[in-house]
């Protein structure tokens, strides 16, 4: 492997250090739109993971044949092909979950995170490293979506994965669509707070 990072480091990088939702702040639309339950977040996360891994593999396999001036249209068409695949698979095998996600499965084609990873990573690195990077990014996205879904489902309807945990409905506000903005904003602020807190502690020690 040309890259000095190991495969596990690449995956961890996608999940923690460069988490697509909380760190890079890319592909916010689905994070706000359909993360009302953990299950919704998981389903869309799986779809994105599939598209990210497959298009990373495709691009890094054929990267030597792509003329640099038409690379962006090539990425777009590759992503569109894989999105069509997952769109038809989900519509055929999981019609119920598919109808819940609505138009967002088709909109994966326009997610900035996938194009960005292809541009920054897959068109330079070998196939193996691209696979692990795509896996990490997809996992990071999935975990981010599920975390937001967890908060909104727990606070909104008092359940986790459909099981009643609290026994009552704390705040109906959180399953209202507009609460997505508040939850994402507050969680970002929370991560910022942790970062500032650690930096301050380090400052005290040295």
């Amino acid at each position, binding site marked *: 492997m040309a890259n000095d990072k190991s495969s596990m480091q690449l995956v961890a990088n996608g999940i923690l250090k460069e988490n697509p939702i909380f760190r890079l702040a890319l592909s916010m639309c689905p994070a706000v739109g359909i993360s009302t339950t953990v299950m919704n977040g998981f389903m869309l996360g799986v779809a994105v993971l599939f598209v990210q891994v497959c298009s990373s593999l495709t691009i890094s396999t054929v990267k030597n044949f792509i003329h640099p001036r038409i690379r962006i*249209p090539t990425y777009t068409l590759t992503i569109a092909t894989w999105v069509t695949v997952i769109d038809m698979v989900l519509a055929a095998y999981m019609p119920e979950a598919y109808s819940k996600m609505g*138009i967002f499965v088709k909109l994966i084609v326009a997610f900035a995170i996938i194009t960005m990873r292809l541009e920054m990573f897959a068109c330079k690195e070998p196939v193996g490293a691209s696979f692990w990077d795509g896996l990490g990014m997809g996992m990071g996205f999935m975990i981010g979506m599920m975390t937001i879904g967890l908060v909104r489902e727990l606070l909104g309807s008092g359940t986790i994965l459909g099981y009643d945990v609290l026994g009552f409905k704390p705040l109906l506000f959180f399953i209202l*669509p507009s609460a997505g903005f508040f939850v994402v904003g507050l969680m970002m602020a929370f991560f910022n707070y942790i970062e500032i807190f650690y930096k301050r502690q380090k400052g005290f020690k040295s």
Partner: protein
Amino acid sequence: MNLARIRLVSLLALLCAFIPGLVHAQELISKQSFGEKNEIILKFSIEVNKAQAADINNYSVIEEQDPDIRLELASAVPNYAGDGVSLHFKGPLNTTKTHIVTVKNLSGDTVSVVKVSKPYLGYLFSILISALLINNFVFTKYLGLCVFFGTSKRKSTAKGMGVVFTMVMVVSALMSWFFFNFILIPYNLNFLQIVVFIGLVSLTVQAVDTILRKVNPILFNSFGVYLVLVIANCVIIAVPLMMANNKFNIFETFMLALGAGGGFLLALYLMSSVSERMQLAKIPPTFKGLPIAFIVAGQFALAFLGFSGLQIF
């Protein structure tokens, strides 16, 4: 002179296109319209027997899309002069659909059939208002957030960006409509939707990029990288996808694209006004940047919830 003539001709053409939808020539029934929530009002050209007119078995009402389901009538009340009747239904009517009313036994053996629908222009306008306010693409559908948070720092950029977005949306939606109706449907290539639409959108964006570079270099420079991001934007690709889902005709597609673009412009302008104020405010360090922008957007979304019951036509 020439321009005025072109305008006149296009106006006439538009009128000719709409008149057949507005006028129904019928012998017995001269006028028909929706009344209250579960009411259809019919006006007759001759005076009819009141006892006959009050018999609900003389009427049958269906929706044009589902001819098998006969809507249940609660009562038929003839008016005082005897030249009209108002039909009351058991359930509320879906007034956006066209209803077909069949009347028999009122004047001899003739059976007359009329279509009851809202004025077509009003329906088009309701699509526009719905995309603009009720289902605002940013605040109630959560589309295009990357560009929304990226370019809503200054008012001037926000306005320019909104206008460019509207143009791109209208052009690409109309192009997609032609491709969808004349190529994808006749050849059964429906599964290629996503690939074709994203190709058309990136083509339009490339054209706008080239034109803007020549026509207005200042605006072009202020956009920076975000013009490229327009390709990878869900707002623009969502319009053709919704058009394909709902099987809109060309006027409806145009109105949807215009409403979506206008809604995006509105959202960008509102957000940029707030962020200009926020630069002067004291914000806690943990909330600086994106978190506070998200919370402001959430408050806008709450405000836009108030439009949800709006119905003009």
